[in-house]
C-alpha cells in the first residue's frame, strides 16, 4: 500500500512553510535576551561572599563592599549600587536581617542565611543548584 504521508514534506514546504523561516532578526533577539540575562546574573559565589562577610559581625553596606573588594569579588566594581539592590533582596528573602544605627543600616545573618551558608560549605555543588531559582529571582 502506498504511504499517504510520503509527500508530506514537499507538500508542506511548498505551502504553509513557503518563505517561512526563523529570521536573522529573531535570532538576534534571542542573542540579545541571552546577553541581558548574563549581565544581570549574580553568581552563587557573590551571594556566598556577602553572607560570609556578615557572618561574624553586622556590617553596613560600605563595609561589606570593602570586604568584598578584599576578597577579590569584583561583581560590583563600578556598579556599587547593585550591591544594595542585592542586599535588599537578601533581606526580603530573610537571609539577612538589618537594623539602623546612627543613620546607617547594619546587616547581619538570619537563621536562614546561616543555614544556607552551612549547607553551601558542606556540599558546594548541591548548594549551587538549590540557590539557582533564588539567583534567578534576583535577576528580575
Amino acid at each position, binding site marked *: 500500500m502506498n504511504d*499517504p*504521508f510520503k509527500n*508530506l514534506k514537499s*507538500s508542506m514546504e*511548498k505551502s504553509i512553510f513557503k518563505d517561512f523561516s526563523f529570521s536573522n532578526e529573531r535570532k538576534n533577539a*534571542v542573542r540579545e535576551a541571552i546577553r541581558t*540575562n548574563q549581565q544581570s546574573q549574580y553568581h552563587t559565589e557573590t551571594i556566598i561572599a556577602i553572607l560570609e562577610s556578615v557572618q561574624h559581625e553586622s556590617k553596613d553596606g560600605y563595609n561589606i563592599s570593602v570586604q568584598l573588594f578584599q576578597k577579590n569579588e569584583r561583581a560590583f566594581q563600578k556598579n556599587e549600587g547593585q550591591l544594595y539592590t542585592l542586599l535588599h533582596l537578601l533581606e526580603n528573602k530573610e537571609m539577612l536581617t538589618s537594623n539602623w544605627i546612627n543613620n546607617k543600616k547594619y546587616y547581619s545573618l538570619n537563621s536562614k542565611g546561616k543555614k544556607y551558608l552551612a549547607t553551601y560549605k558542606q556540599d558546594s555543588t548541591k548548594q549551587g543548584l538549590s540557590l539557582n531559582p533564588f539567583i534567578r529571582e534576583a535577576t528580575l
Partner: protein
Amino acid sequence: MKELNQLAVTDEMMLDERDQIIDQLMREYSDDILHLVYTYVKNRTIAEDLAQEIFIKCYEKLNQFNRQSTIKTWLYRIASNHCKDYLRSWHYRKITLSNKVFDHIPSKSKQVEEEVIKHSEENNLTNAVMNLPLKYREVVFLHYYEELSLKEISKITSVNINTLKTRLKRAKELLKDKMIEEV
C-alpha cells in the same frame, strides 16, 4: 553534532560556551523548530514568538542537559512541551480562541482565499494533516516532516513506541476517510 554534544556536557560551562551552543542549535535547527511550533499553534507570528522563547529557555536550562538523549531530541522535547504549555495557557484559551470565533464569521475575501488554497493539489495533504487532532498531527509531522525515528519521537513526547505506531496507523485511516469524503 557530536562535537556539540561533547561541548554541552562539561559541568561548569563558561557563559560564552553556552552562547556558542545556542548559536549552533539555531543555525542547525531553527527552521525545523519553527515549523514544528507552527503545527501546534497554526499561526506564524505566535510560532516565531514561541520559537524565540524556546531557544532562550534552552540557554537557561543548558546546565540540566544530561547525556541521556542527544541535544537534538532534548531541544525538540523542550519545544514540544513549551507549545503544549502555551496551548493550555490562559492567554491562548481566552484571547486566541475567542479571536478565532471572528474567523468563522463569513467574510467574502477570506472565503475566496481559502477556496484557492484548498483547490491546489499540493495543499490537500498539508491541510488534511493540519486538521488532524493534535496527538496524530504531532507524530505524523515529527515522523514524516522532521524525519525522526519512532524511538526519538518517543523520547520527545514521552509516549510509548507502540502507542505511536497505533497513532500513525489511525492517522492514515483518518486521512483516507477525509480523502474519500472530498471525492
